[in-house]
Each structure stands twice: as structure tokens, then as C-alpha cells.
């Protein structure tokens, strides 16, 4: 008997007892959902390579080359030319409708492809040429096409456009990849959306288009009828910008009509099954309505959202999906399910499940460093659930619950959820969240709404009503969804490999991985006489790294409207429609930048070890320590163990090291207020990791906390080092509680592993709630849980075929365990399993 046949004989109850939730889901979801779930081509990479069968999409490049050549005879302004390229793509790309699908749209041409925009940058293009697995069949022919595209776009890409605008020293340091990620341009990163403008049912694309045309007419009238003065000079650029926006909206509406036409043709000419025919006609009707006109039903609302996201991903490579789906789609669920009873609850959950699937299948080709840093997923689609309304009342609704039920049915690793917890959240909602976690999804993460609203007001001056609209801009950072509050582009370059701060204290700023002088040339550590000198060098390196990243992103933000405009994103943003300025123009934004702090906690543990063993106990000299670190601890194993085991470690409620952690954060917070973004706002730190701790493992040298080059860095945020938090869960929370989660930084990620068997049943829920109460009382802003046993994870390592569906929480995201590298898997298994209660 095959394993599948044997499983089919097992009852749902038996599978539940064995906590094999993935088989429970398969057995209990509808046939439609089951088909769609299994139809997904996973677009996350394992380490640096895509899954077998996933291929790079050449269609955009070829169509863009076609429209570029055609455009050369016209003298269009750059922004209009760009909009026309995108429109040409949307008009001519291949579209498809999967069997059983009720929601449609994909960023690439076919389900197994990852979208590639060769106009983005030469580095990415060369990487694709070098890729050993993702070149489509027939490979020889495709390689020639890739080479042709690389050659064609060389010198014409965004990268070529922006590089000369940066300071050469700063740009070379950033491009080394040792301390920050990627290039600071407004077409790679995370795009927030002005959902308050777009998703409240008041308007859709046609309404905006009408307004834009009126704006163009008025401006045109002014230019030709007013007395010429410098006042009208900026109208020329504005007209271009508005016109580009109209091109994008019209293209978006035409694109949806293509789906409507396909669905109708299939219904009328291909489909024999009457139920499916009805479904296809509804798809056609839906795509005739949205995005042109505001949605009228849950299906239309979800489809509208999907189109909005996909168009944005055609314009830019987006590594996140800021969304608050229960809040904005909730009224349609209420109308369809509760009031008009057009949909049963199960049908609505199926639709929501399909919405998750449509998001899960999105894939855009990412460079190797992103694939490694976001293993197993295409980007961090962390969707925000719950929270409060603008007036402070509970915003949870029936769709909040439906999303969590749907998540347990489809079990995708991306998108994931984060729940905005506040004291008024109903038990019913918390129970659903707990069930998701207990079923091993690793989500929702729990966010402390009151703390984060206060934090948003403290750091960025958001008015309280605006702050209350917040959603996750990426994994962790809250950003509002309002006209001036939303962030159009968070450039990932301000993502710091923070372990380099303490490393550079010992190398005087020289980076041995990329062989460059990266940090500040601080004093010779061998001559340090006291701990204060170590701290002084640490501050200097911190300022040097953060200063570098902030400088380039500030410059990128300031030049973005000219170098890489976003006509589509502008078209769906009130501030741009109103002003005719690109959405990324810093003058339109309140500004809510942050520095993501990868590999942060190593700093506190390393500093504490130096203080304790060198300056307090005087067991070793700085010379000895420098020698050991230079040798990567090779030949100094006993000393290394001393630095691990006989120095206090973060996460054990030990003031010795916790005070150092707080000092580090407050030193950064001081600098965060000195640095300003182009909108004039602060640059707070947000420690978290995704899987950057693995990506950077071979780039960060030996550290005084006892790690060697190659060892995984800690799993991130303010999570203690794996296995080093030995005093239990409350001690972890107490350490974290010493940080002021409002004023010491933007947000602080905390990973915790809990035991699935300990937390089984009603008792488990009660214990978990008690744990969360302590967490909330201590004022922490975030916590997320892995609840999959070591036994399951090891079994999945040895028999991956059997455990394809096991999901784990990596850092700010979840991934299928089989889709992450062995080293990342081991790093998760190494984490301490906390017993609570």
C-alpha cells in the first residue's frame, strides 16, 4: 500500500492526534480548494536556487524590447515612455485561467514562471544569465535570448540610471553587499498603498481617471491662458506625470477586460460543465466591474485587490505585500455572508483561501542574496489582521476569523498573518490565532497594538487616527494606509548587517569578506585599556554603517521621482493624483523610514563577553582576544567555549548583559533622531532577520560571543541566541521587557519555540493566553511562535518527500521546511523549546 493510500484510510481524528495538520487540511478542504492548493508552483528558493520546474519568464523582456524600439521614434517624456512600456506589456502579455479558479491574474506569463524585468539592473540580468537551473526549455535557445536581453538592456537599466547619481564611495560599499542589501531605487523594495483612498469603496480606476483628465485639462488651460510666470513651470512636469498615470489606469482596465473576455469565451465555447460555466461567467462579470468600478461583492473586492497588487508588481519588484485584508474586505464579507446571504460561510472561506493561493503563487526573479535571505518564499507577504478602527474601537470582524480558518485549510507559507492584539480583542479571535499557531503555521505573529500606535506617534509623529490604520510594511514595521502616512517605497538597502558593528571594532572597519575598508578606522583594539574604549569604537562603527545606509537611501529617495518614477503607484495614491507629483516625492510624505537591523543581538552578547572576561575578570587580554578572532577561534576552542559559557547571555533576565543591550539600543536611538529622512523624519532601528542570519553566516567573521565564520547568526530581532536562553520563557520576556518598546526603536522581533504537545487542547490555549498576558504586561511589541516538534523536523530532514507540507516560522515569515537550506533547518532545530505554564 502506498503512503498516500494508507493516509486516505486514516481518519481526521487520527491525523489530528498525530498532529499531522497538513493531512488534516487536505482531507477537510473542498475539492476546489484542494485542486488550487496543489496547483501552486512554489516560487521561493531553496538557498540560492529555485525549485525544480520553476523557470525565469522571458516575456516581459521581449515585449519591453519591442516597445523600447518603437518608442525611439517618439519624443515622449521619460515617465510617459515608461508607462507606455508597462501598458504594452499588460496589453500583450500571456494571461491564463487555471481550472476551478474564481480569482484571476498573475504577474508573469505562465504559472511556473518567475517574472523578470531586465530593465531593472545589469547585476540581476547577469545573475539570470549565470543561473544554473531556472533557464526555460529549450535551454540553449533560451540562453541566447537571455544574452540578447542582457546585451540590449546593458547601459539602459535603472541601475545604470541611478548609479552615477550616488557618491562613489558609498555606492561601492553598498554594492559590496557586506553591510546592506541591494540598490536604493524605488522599483525594488516594499510598496505600501494608499488603501484609505483606494479600498473604501468610494472610488476605483475610472473615477480616478476622470479626475486625472480634469487635472490635465485645467493645467493645460493654465499654461496656455495665464500670463507666463515661473508659477506655471512645474505644470509641464505635472501634466506628464498625470498623463503617465492615465496610461497606467487605462492599461489596467484593459488588462482586466482581457480576463473578462477570456473567461466569457471559455464559458461560451469551451466549458461543458454548467457549474464551471457559471463560475467563469461570474469571473467575466467581476473583471468587467473591477478595477474600473468599485467592487460590489467579496469576490469583486478580492479580485480588485489582486489586480491592484499585480499591476504594482509589474511596475516594481516588490519584496513585501503590505495588506490589511480583513479591514478593507470585511464589509463585503458582512454584506455577502451575513446580510444578503449570497455566500455561505464555507464558500466565502473558499474564496478567501483562493485569494491566499493567488498571492502565494506570485514570483518575481530575485537576486541570489535575496533568495538566500528570504529562503522558501518570494517576499514577506505579512498581512495584518485585527487591530482597531480609527476611533480606537475593535476592528476585528468575521472576515478576520475567516482568514485564519482559510489559512489552516490552504496552509500556504506565504502570505502569513500578523494579528494586531489589543485588550479588546475577543477570545474567539485569539482562539483562531492560537489554532493557526498550534497547527504549526508559525503565524499569525502577535503585535501589541497600543504599544505600536504609541511608537508610531513617538517616532514619526503620525496623528493618532492615522497611526491606528497601521499595517505591516514588510515583516515587522508598522506603516499607516493614509494619504500622507503610507510609505510608497521602503528601499531595502537600509537593512544593516549589524553583527558587522562588533566585528569592525576588532578589524578597525576593514571587511575581510569583501576585502574593503568598510567601516570607520577606529583605534587599535589591542590597545584598549577599558570597556569604555570598546563602547566608543562600537558607537563609531554603528554610526559609520547606519550612516552609510541612510545616506544612500536618502539620496535614492530624493532622486527617485526623476530617476525611476512610479506612474502606476502614483495613480492609485491620492497625494499624487492631487498634486501631479510622483508618489515617491519626499515632500508629499510624512516619512516613516526605518533601518532593519539584521544580526543584532550578537552585539550585546559579544560586548558582555568582552567586558566580563577581559575587563572585569581579566582572564584574557585584548591581545589574546584579537589573536583568537583573527584565527577564527581555530586553535582557541577552550577559550571560545569560555566566551560562550562563562559570559552572561541575553535572554536570561541578567542585568549584566541586558543593560548592555539597552545601552546599545539607546545609543542607536540617539543617532536615529540625529539622522533624518528626506521628509525630515527620524530613522529608528528595527531589529529582525528574515533568513539573513544564514545568508550572512559566511560573511561575518569570528565574534567575541563565540561564533565562528560560517556559523549561523542568531535568529534575529531581540531573540536570544539559540540554546542560550536557559532560564525559561519568563526570563526571556523579562529581558525583552527591559527595552522600552516605544522609544528604543521601531519594533523588536521575538521568536519563541513552544511545545505542541504541551500546548494541546483547551489547557494549552489557557496557558498560551497567560503567557501572552505576561508578554503584554511587559510592553513587548511582537512575538511569534514555532510549534513544531524536533521529532517532526528531524523526520522531515530525513524523509523530505513525506513532509513536504510542514511549515516553520523562520523569522519574520514562515516557509515550508523542505524549502529552506539544511543550515537554516538546523538553526531552527537549535532554538530552545520553551515550556510554559
Amino acid at each position: 500500500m502506498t503512503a498516500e493510500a494508507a493516509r486516505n484510510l486514516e481518519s481526521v481524528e487520527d491525523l489530528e492526534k498525530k498532529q499531522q495538520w497538513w493531512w488534516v487540511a487536505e482531507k477537510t478542504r473542498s475539492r476546489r480548494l484542494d485542486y488550487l492548493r496543489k496547483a501552486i508552483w512554489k516560487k521561493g528558493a531553496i538557498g540560492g536556487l529555485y525549485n525544480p520546474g520553476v523557470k525565469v519568464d522571458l516575456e516581459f523582456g521581449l515585449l519591453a524590447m519591442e516597445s523600447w524600439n518603437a518608442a525611439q521614434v517618439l519624443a515622449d517624456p521619460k515617465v510617459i515612455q515608461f508607462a507606455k512600456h508597462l501598458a504594452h506589456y499588460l496589453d500583450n502579455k500571456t494571461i491564463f485561467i487555471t481550472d476551478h479558479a474564481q480569482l484571476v491574474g498573475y504577474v508573469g506569463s505562465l504559472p511556473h514562471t518567475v517574472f523578470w524585468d531586465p530593465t531593472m539592473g545589469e547585476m540581476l540580468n547577469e545573475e539570470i544569465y549565470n543561473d544554473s537551473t531556472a533557464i526555460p526549455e529549450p535551454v540553449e535557445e533560451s540562453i541566447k535570448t537571455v544574452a540578447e536581453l542582457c546585451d540590449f538592456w546593458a547601459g539602459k537599466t535603472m541601475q545604470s540610471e541611478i548609479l552615477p547619481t550616488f557618491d562613489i564611495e558609498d555606492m561601492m560599499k553598498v554594492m559590496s553587499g557586506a553591510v546592506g542589501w541591494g540598490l536604493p531605487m524605488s522599483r525594488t523594495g516594499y510598496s505600501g498603498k494608499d488603501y484609505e483612498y483606494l479600498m473604501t469603496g468610494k472610488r476605483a480606476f475610472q473615477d480616478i481617471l476622470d479626475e486625472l483628465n480634469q487635472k490635465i485639462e485645467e493645467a493645460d488651460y493654465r499654461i496656455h491662458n495665464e500670463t507666463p510666470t515661473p508659477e506655471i513651470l512645474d505644470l509641464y512636469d505635472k501634466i506628464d506625470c498625470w498623463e503617465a498615470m492615465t496610461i497606467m489606469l487605462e492599461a489596467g482596465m484593459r488588462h482586466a477586460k482581457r480576463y473578462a473576455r477570456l473567461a466569457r469565451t471559455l464559458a461560451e465555447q469551451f466549458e461543458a460543465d454548467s457549474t464551471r460555466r457559471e463560475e467563469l461567467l461570474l469571473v467575466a462579470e467581476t473583471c468587467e466591474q473591477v478595477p474600473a468600478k468599485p467592487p460590489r461583492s467579496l469576490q469583486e473586492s478580492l479580485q480588485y485587490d489582486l489586480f491592484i497588487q499585480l499591476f504594482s508588481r509589474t511596475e516594481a519588484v516588490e519584496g513585501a505585500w503590505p495588506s490589511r485584508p480583513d479591514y478593507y474586505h470585511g464589509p463585503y464579507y458582512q454584506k455577502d455572508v451575513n446580510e444578503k446571504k449570497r455566500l455561505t460561510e464555507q464558500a466565502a472561506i473558499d474564496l478567501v483561501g483562493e485569494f491566499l493561493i493567488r498571492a502565494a503563487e506570485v514570483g518575481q526573479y530575485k537576486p541570489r542574496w535575496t533568495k538566500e535571505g528570504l529562503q522558501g518564499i518570494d517576499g514577506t507577504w505579512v498581512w495584518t489582521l485585527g487591530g482597531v478602527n480609527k476611533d480606537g474601537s475593535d476592528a476585528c470582524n468575521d472576515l478576520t476569523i475567516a482568514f485564519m480558518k482559510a489559512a489552516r485549510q490552504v496552509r500556504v507559507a506565504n502570505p502569513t498573518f500578523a494579528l494586531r492584539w489589543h485588550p479588546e480583542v475577543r477570545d474567539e479571535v485569539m482562539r483562531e490565532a492560537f489554532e493557526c499557531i498550534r497547527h504549526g503555521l508559525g503565524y499569525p505573529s502577535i503585535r501589541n497594538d497600543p504599544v505600536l500606535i504609541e511608537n508610531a506617534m513617538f517616532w514619526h509623529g503620525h496623528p493618532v487616527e492615522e497611526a491606528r490604520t497601521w499595517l505591516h510594511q514588510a515583516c515587522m514595521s508598522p506603516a499607516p494606509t493614509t494619504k500622507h502616512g503610507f510609505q510608497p517605497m521602503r528601499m531595502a538597502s537600509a537593512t544593516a548587517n549589524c553583527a558587522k558593528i562588533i566585528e569592525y571594532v576588532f578589524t578597525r572597519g576593514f571587511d575581510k569578506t569583501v576585502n574593503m575598508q568598510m567601516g570607520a578606522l577606529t583605534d587599535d583594539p589591542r590597545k584598549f585599556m577599558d570597556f569604555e574604549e570598546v563602547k566608543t569604537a562600537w558607537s563609531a562603527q554603528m554610526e559609520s554603517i547606519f550612516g552609510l545606509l541612510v545616506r544612500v537611501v536618502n539620496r535614492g529617495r530624493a532622486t527617485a521621482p526623476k530617476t525611476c518614477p512610479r506612474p502606476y503607484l502614483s495613480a492609485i495614491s491620492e497625494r499624487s493624483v492631487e498634486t501631479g507629483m510622483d508618489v515617491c516625492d519626499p515632500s508629499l510624505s510624512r516619512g516613516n523610514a526605518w533601518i532593519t537591523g539584521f544580526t543584532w543581538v550578537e552585539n550585546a552578547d559579544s560586548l558582555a563577553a568582552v567586558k566580563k572576561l577581559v575587563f572585569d575578570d581579566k582572564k584574557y587580554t585584548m591581545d589574546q582576544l584579537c589573536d583568537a578572532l583573527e584565527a577564527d577561534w581555530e586553535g582557541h576552542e577552550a577559550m571560545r567555549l569560555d566566551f560562550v559559557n562563562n559570559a552572561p547571555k541575553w535572554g536570561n533576565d541578567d542585568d549584566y548583559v541586558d543593560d548592555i543591550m539597552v545601552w546599545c539600543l539607546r545609543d542607536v536611538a540617539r543617532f536615529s533622531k540625529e539622522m533624518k529622512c528626506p521628509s525630515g523624519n527620524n530613522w529608528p532601528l528595527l531589529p529582525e532577520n528574515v533568513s539573513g542570519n544564514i545568508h550572512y553566516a559566511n560573511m561575518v567573521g569570528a565574534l567575541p560571543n563565540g561564533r565562528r565564520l560560517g556559523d549561523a547568526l542568531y535568529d534575529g530581532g531581540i531573540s536570544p541566541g539559540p540554546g542560550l536562553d536557559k532560564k525559561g520563557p519568563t526570563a526571556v520576556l523579562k529581558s525583552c521587557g527591559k527595552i522600552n518598546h516605544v522609544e528604543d526603536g521601531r519594533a523588536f522581533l521575538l521568536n519563541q519555540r513552544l511545545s505542541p504537545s504541551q500546548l494541546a487542547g483547551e489547557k494549552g490555549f489557557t496557558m498560551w493566553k497567560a503567557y501572552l498576558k505576561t508578554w503584554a504586561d511587559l510592553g513587548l511589541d511582537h512575538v511569534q511562535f514555532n510549534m513544531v516538534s524536533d521529532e517532526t523536523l528531524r523526520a522531515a530532514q530525513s524523509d523530505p518527500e513525506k513532509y513536504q507540507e510542514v511549515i516553520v516560522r523562520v523569522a519574520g515569515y514562515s516557509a515550508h521546511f523542505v524549502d529552506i537550506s539544511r543550515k537554516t533547518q538546523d538553526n531552527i532545530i537549535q532554538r530552545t523549546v520553551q515550556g510554559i505554564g
Partner: protein
Amino acid sequence: MSRRDELRKVQAGRLSAQRAPKATQVKAEKICGLCSNYSEGAFSGEGAGSCRILKVKSDISADPPKYDLESTDGYQTMNLMDAGKCQYYEKMSFVDKDGTECSDPRYRRSMRQMQD
């Protein structure tokens, strides 16, 4: 050479690295990617990297090659750079072509052209 000039050279090295290997398609017997002194770049995918021994003012494609061992920043080169004339070339005993693990610049050579 001023620091800015040095960096311009580094940048030129990196950007030209994106053109040369594909254009030639002929892999030399001794290439930087097979040398134990080579470290793949942190971004790695585009095939660029740097040398642990040679510094920025070096040029191993010149005839005779120029060796700078004194400057601060390392010599920027690429996996497929012909290192036939470089006197510091030292053949690696172990090259890791597994692309599913995470980047280890000292060993990793996962690009398609290095797979054979």
C-alpha cells in the same frame, strides 16, 4: 591614486565583470573562481568577487601583470577572469557547486558556467 579614483577602478571592475565572461564564453584553464585566494562577492550571482592577496591597483590581465600588495582595498575580479598569468594563482582543492546552500564566498561557485 586617490581614494575616489581607487573606488572608480573598483566600480569599473565590477561593472565590466558583468560583461566580459558572457561575451567571451571561452573559459580559461586558470580562472579566479578556481583560485583559493578568491572570494565570491556577497551578491555572488553576477559572478564578481575579490582577491585576498592582491590589492586594488593590481591588473592581472596586463602584460606583464601588475601586482599591488600594499593598498587597503582588495582587487576586484570575477569568477571567470583569466588568471593564467597571475603568479599568486593557487588552485583550490575543493569547489562547492551546490547552489541550494547559502553563499560561502570562499568555496561557492554555483553559476552555470562553473558547473561543468
